[in-house]
């Protein structure tokens, strides 16, 4: 009962917020439009609807065909399934072959959880350490570090990959999970800039009070700064998690035998297309979509409000 009430309250609050937004929009001078403007907005609305259809329909088509039998799909690839079957999903969960490195989609999702999860934790931690110190402490070389980081982000480096591969081989980090996480663990990427600007804006009053009480710098960082910067840290974590979850380059080169879902999906699709097993491929795509769509639905507000240039990779 308490759970039902909880959800009822949430939906009620959302409805009220929506009504409030609608009312504000209706009476807002910014959104009052003349006749000519209205026509332009209607035309653009139609364009946007067509664009939205171009994104939604292919996914709906894939979803619908995932419930068809092979013969049903080959005889009618556009209509609704004559009989809705779940066998494609069951088979997709257990499908593995030599070309998928004997990994099932479930194991691939597990690998993604480990690599993207650990990679995100490590990189957000190192970025916040570096960003906090550079933003808030005065020490020799501070401006040099900031300048070099900005320079490294501006200068277009093409083809550092061969050299990186050689270095990783020499460090014996290729084909290891640690190697992948090590590559992700840099503290001076775009996360650094995002966290640098949020740490820069943090009030120093709490820190001064803590210093007077005798707290060490480490204690201040872990007990005061990190909780204070919780908002930006969560945003950076989620955006980074999505970025690493979708990353193809690093795991495809440094962990080809233990594929993550982004890499494994390529193996799975190649293998299924070769066997002309399209219905199973559709089910596989739908399964692969579930984790990322869940994350997006759960944190859509955080993701959409915190996306800025360099913050989210496509």
């Amino acid at each position: 009962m308490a759970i039902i009430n909880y959800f009822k309250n949430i939906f009620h609050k959302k409805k009220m917020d929506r009504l409030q937004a609608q009312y504000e929009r209706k009476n807002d001078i910014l959104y009052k439009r003349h006749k000519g403007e209205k026509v332009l907005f209607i035309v653009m609305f139609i364009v946007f609807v067509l664009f939205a259809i171009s994104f939604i329909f292919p996914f709906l088509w894939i979803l619908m065909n995932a419930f068809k039998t092979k013969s049903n799909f080959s005889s009618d690839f556009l209509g609704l399934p004559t009989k809705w079957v779940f066998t494609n999903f069951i088979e997709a969960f257990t499908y593995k072959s030599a070309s998928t490195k004997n990994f099932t989609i479930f194991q691939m999702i597990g690998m993604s959880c480990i690599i993207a999860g650990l990679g995100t934790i490590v990189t957000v931690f190192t970025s916040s350490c570096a960003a906090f110190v550079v933003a808030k402490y005065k020490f020799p070389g501070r401006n040099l570090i900031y300048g070099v980081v900005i320079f490294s982000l501006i200068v277009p480096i093409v083809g550092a990959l061969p050299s990186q591969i050689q270095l990783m081989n020499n460090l014996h980090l290729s084909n290891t999970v640690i190697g992948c996480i090590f590559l992700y663990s840099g503290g001076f990427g775009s996360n650094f800039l995002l966290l640098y600007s949020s740490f820069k804006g943090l009030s120093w009053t709490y820190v001064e009070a803590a210093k007077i009480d005798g707290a060490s710098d480490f204690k201040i960082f872990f007990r005061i700064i990190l909780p204070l910067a919780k908002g930006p840290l969560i945003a950076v974590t989620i955006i980074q998690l999505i970025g690493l979850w979708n990353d193809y380059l690093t795991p495809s080169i440094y962990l080809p035998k233990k594929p993550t879902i982004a890499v494994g999906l390529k193996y799975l699709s190649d293998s299924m297309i070769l066997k002309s097993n399209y219905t199973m491929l559709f089910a596989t795509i739908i399964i692969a979509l579930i984790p990322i769509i869940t994350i997006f639905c759960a944190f859509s507000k955080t993701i959409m409000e915190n996306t800025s240039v360099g913050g989210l990779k496509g």
Partner: protein
Amino acid sequence: MEKVIESNPPKRKRRRFKIKGTSIFIFVMLFYPVAHFLLMWFGVNINSILLTFQTPVKGKLVWVEFKELFYNYETLFLSFKTSTVQSMLKASGVYFIISCLITLPISLFFSYFIFKKIVGNSFFKVIFFLPSILPLIILTLVFSLSFSPNGLMAPILQLFGQKADLFIGDSAKWMVWFFCIWAGIGYDVILLTSGMSRIPRDVLESCKMDGVPPMKEFFKIIIPLTWPTITTLFIFGMMSVFNVYLQPMFLTSGMYDTMTIGLKIYQDSGGSALNTPATLGLFCSLVATPIILTTRWGLNKIYGDVNY
């Protein structure tokens, strides 16, 4: 007097300790990020340069002889005369047009309407977000399956007399370009809308009160005030000439004139002759850096710094 003398030494001690503690803190916090950066940025890039002076002998890279110091560069320049490399350079160059001259202007126009809260803007924003949150492999799969002869688009394509697989032959490159625009618009719109959302409300209100028409507002107010984001996306677009590799790899495996510089470097990096992709990469960096930095400088000059 005695009391003062007694109280001085401990004070100094405490001060020294504090400085030491903070120094240790700064050192510990920066040690790993700086070490990682030195190794993975400076180390890797210096090694890239060194690789261009090496050559594979029996599967191992060894230094080239001094009299043939620029052997790899000479080989690279010679390869520019071959038709495959020329086609690759052309195919890569097209991404400047696609990213900077097609996708970016369309996205800018679309973003304006999202920013002006067109009916259903929240829903459209989610749609525009899809390319940013979905793995590229899923997007390319959905796209290629939809356009396959047994795909969603087959009946429409048949109306135009198109029955063959569009990802084979001359049409393949057009499909890759079309995909890049289709998926790229969403990415650009999100970043541009986020840039536009920072424009102060009073500026827009005064525009409205003065009766400025939408297109005038778009060109005279929105574009200048979103210029830093536009500049960054333009630079990203220029970089795509060298960076695009996944789209042609997933859609056409780099065949049918869709091979790009980025894909060539990615594929060649899988072999033992790392000197070849390293030389191509370094040459591209040397060409790209001045062009891109000059463009950035020039674009920044157009509207100057935007402060609000």
